[in-house]
């Protein structure tokens, strides 16, 4: 209970000042669609649509309008617009697909946002409609999301085997989450945790409960059936199954030592490494695309344009014999020397002849 004093002398009427009323009235004037557009979260981030709108219209538009020449205007598109589009859309999509690809190996590091939503109506159409599935897969707010390290810890480990009791359906529920919700491979997971004994333990349990299983057919459904039967057994069957079941549960423990980093189980460590590699590679690819390739391409293209422009400037008009007038888009150059052979205007020539022409041109101008 909030321990505010019961002394009513401390209670005061609410101070409704003039400034507060002005603020309240001013706020009412602002239309709802503007406040929706300008919404920011507690950390100061805008939503993606607002970000992209500001970037496209004001950031790029401002740079374009205030550019000093046409080259700078062109570079706003080749360098800046492509960078923003890549950063806001392309890189997160790449990250999603990379994460999904790595998760296909059987150790989940991604989840689908729809596990939190009641989508029974839309789910049916998504299963049949290709376009709907594609749209869902590239939706950045929904669809596949890369898990956080805390989530990986929840999925692949427990602090102590006794904590399985706190999960719905216990150890079965924990394994069901990996197999059904996250589309993981339980057989692979157990093999990573204990390559030698885990499968044998599962097969021993299967034999006790009359489940037909061998190393080849240990799929998710079979493993879930084995664990469920072992966990829900009673009496003598429970006593016999308990040591084997405890062995399997202990595999997921994270060993904590005082004043030291906890020792992760192999499955969590592997999942953690895979997530780190996915994210690190997305940082590297971002750096390559936005910091490396796009600026390089931009500079290369500008240089190429100027190289062609300079080559045009040095070409000669073949029609005029005495006065070789070279009309360039930038400068008018008159060549009065009769010794210079008229060249084909359109000829770009090889580098050596171009260099000669350029040298001759420089002599004339000087």
């Amino acid at each position, binding site marked *: 209970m909030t321990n505010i004093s019961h002394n009513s002398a401390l209670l005061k009427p609410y101070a409704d000042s003039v400034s507060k009323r002005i603020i309240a009235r001013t706020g009412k004037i602002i239309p709802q669609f503007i406040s929706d557009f300008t919404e920011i*979260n507690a950390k100061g981030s805008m939503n993606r649509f607002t970000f992209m709108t500001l970037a496209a219209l004001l950031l790029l538009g401002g740079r374009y309008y205030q550019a*000093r020449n046409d080259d700078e205007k062109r570079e706003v598109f080749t360098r800046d617009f492509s960078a923003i589009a890549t950063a806001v859309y392309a890189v997160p999509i790449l990250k999603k697909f990379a994460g999904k690809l790595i998760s296909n190996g059987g150790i989940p590091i991604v989840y689908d946002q729809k596990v939190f939503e009641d989508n029974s109506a839309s789910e049916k159409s998504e299963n049949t409609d290709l376009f709907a599935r594609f749209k869902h897969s590239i939706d950045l707010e929904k669809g596949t999301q890369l898990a956080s390290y805390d989530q990986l810890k929840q999925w692949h480990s427990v602090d102590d085997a006794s904590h399985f009791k706190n999960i719905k359906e216990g150890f079965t529920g924990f394994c069901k989450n990996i197999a059904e919700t996250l589309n993981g491979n339980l057989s692979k997971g157990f093999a990573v945790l204990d390559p030698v004994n885990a499968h044998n333990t599962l097969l021993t349990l299967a034999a006790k409960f009359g489940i037909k299983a061998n190393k080849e057919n240990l799929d998710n459904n079979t493993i879930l059936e084995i664990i469920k039967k072992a966990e829900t057994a009673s009496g003598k069957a429970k006593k016999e199954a308990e040591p084997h079941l405890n062995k399997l549960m202990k595999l997921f423990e994270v060993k904590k030592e005082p004043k030291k980093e906890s020792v992760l189980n192999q499955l969590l460590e592997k999942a953690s490494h895979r997530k780190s590699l996915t994210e690190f590679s997305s940082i590297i690819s971002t750096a390559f695309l936005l910091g490396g390739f796009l600026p390089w391409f931009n500079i290369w293209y500008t*240089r190429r344009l100027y190289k062609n*422009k300079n080559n045009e400037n040095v070409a000669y008009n073949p029609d005029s014999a005495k006065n070789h007038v070279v009309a360039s888009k930038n400068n008018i150059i008159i060549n009065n020397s009769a010794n210079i052979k008229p060249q084909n205007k359109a000829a770009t020539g090889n580098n050596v002849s171009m260099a000669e022409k350029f040298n001759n041109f420089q002599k004339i101008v000087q």
Partner: protein
Amino acid sequence: MIIKYPKVYKTGVPEAKEAKNTGNFKTHCANDKMGSKSGFAASGKTEGGIFKKVLKLIDRFQKTIESGGFFYEFLVVDFAGMIIPRTVQAYLRNRDELGHLNYKAGSEEAIRELLTGPSMFIIPMAFLAIARKKIGTASHVKLDTLRNFKNVAESGIKAAKEPNNIVNSFYKGIVKNLYGNNLDTKQNGMLAGAFTKLHDAYTNPDPLKKADGLLNKLIRIFKKPDPQNVEKAKNHLKDLLIKTNTKIGEDKTHGISLADSSKINLFGKNTSAENMVQDCMNYSTDVLNSLVKSDGNRLSVLEKVHEYKEGARKIITTAAVGTVAAFLYYIPHFYKQNKEFPGIDGLTLKSDNSNVKSAGKGVV
């Protein structure tokens, strides 16, 4: 003590055919009597060892970024991925033609990139920091969440028998919204109690001090909430929420799934438990505290407080985004230190390119 190691033979030499210790150091040391903890294996100067070390380094790096929060992650990626490589490329632009580094292009690029990325976060954060001091912590709560909180607060005021119970009553309503019928009255009360305890840790620095009057007033003014108490209460609440979620397992209506036990729906929107708790505290320590401390008709006080807080929230967010927009538009004024575009320095035939713009429409 003399430490002996069995001789290791290179693969391919005649002795290797019969020798047990053939191959690389790692497999050898793993098999020898000293075990894999021997000095040679531990130093791991083989391919597998280095790869694992690099992997651990990358793992640690990524965990540091994630724990630092979104802004920290953005800064690292923006600096390492955009600002530094682009600035380097700008400095090296047309170096051969110029005969030296392109200082003009490099400095323009550095200023442009440094001002663009961080400003999109720093400006809104600055506005929120000012709002926190001048308006109150409720200014950090999104508008639609504020309105939903108001509905729950109204029910809380009506249900509470005395002012001291308003906060607890409010949180009972919040827990009901979070979990619906998944919890019984006792569990609901326990969770609401944990929320209220956190609220008290924020607002009552010394709940054990029962002295009335001036002393209590002075304590409340000068003593800030004990951060340890707040952290303790926050962690306890977070653990309780996660335990409750794992116990329930799956409930899509309330956004509960074992895929992430720290996520839950508040007013139909999926959010993390941490953000949800922070929103609740931002609201209750500001708005509900004003209600509890005021006398008179609390429902009309709630109405007035909300008009003020919602109006302020709209003004703050509009002003923040508007300022970002204006700043982004005016960034070119800061980096355009040269009259001409330095990106084509060294590329034009004439030594100066001052006629480029003046050539008019014919210029490419």
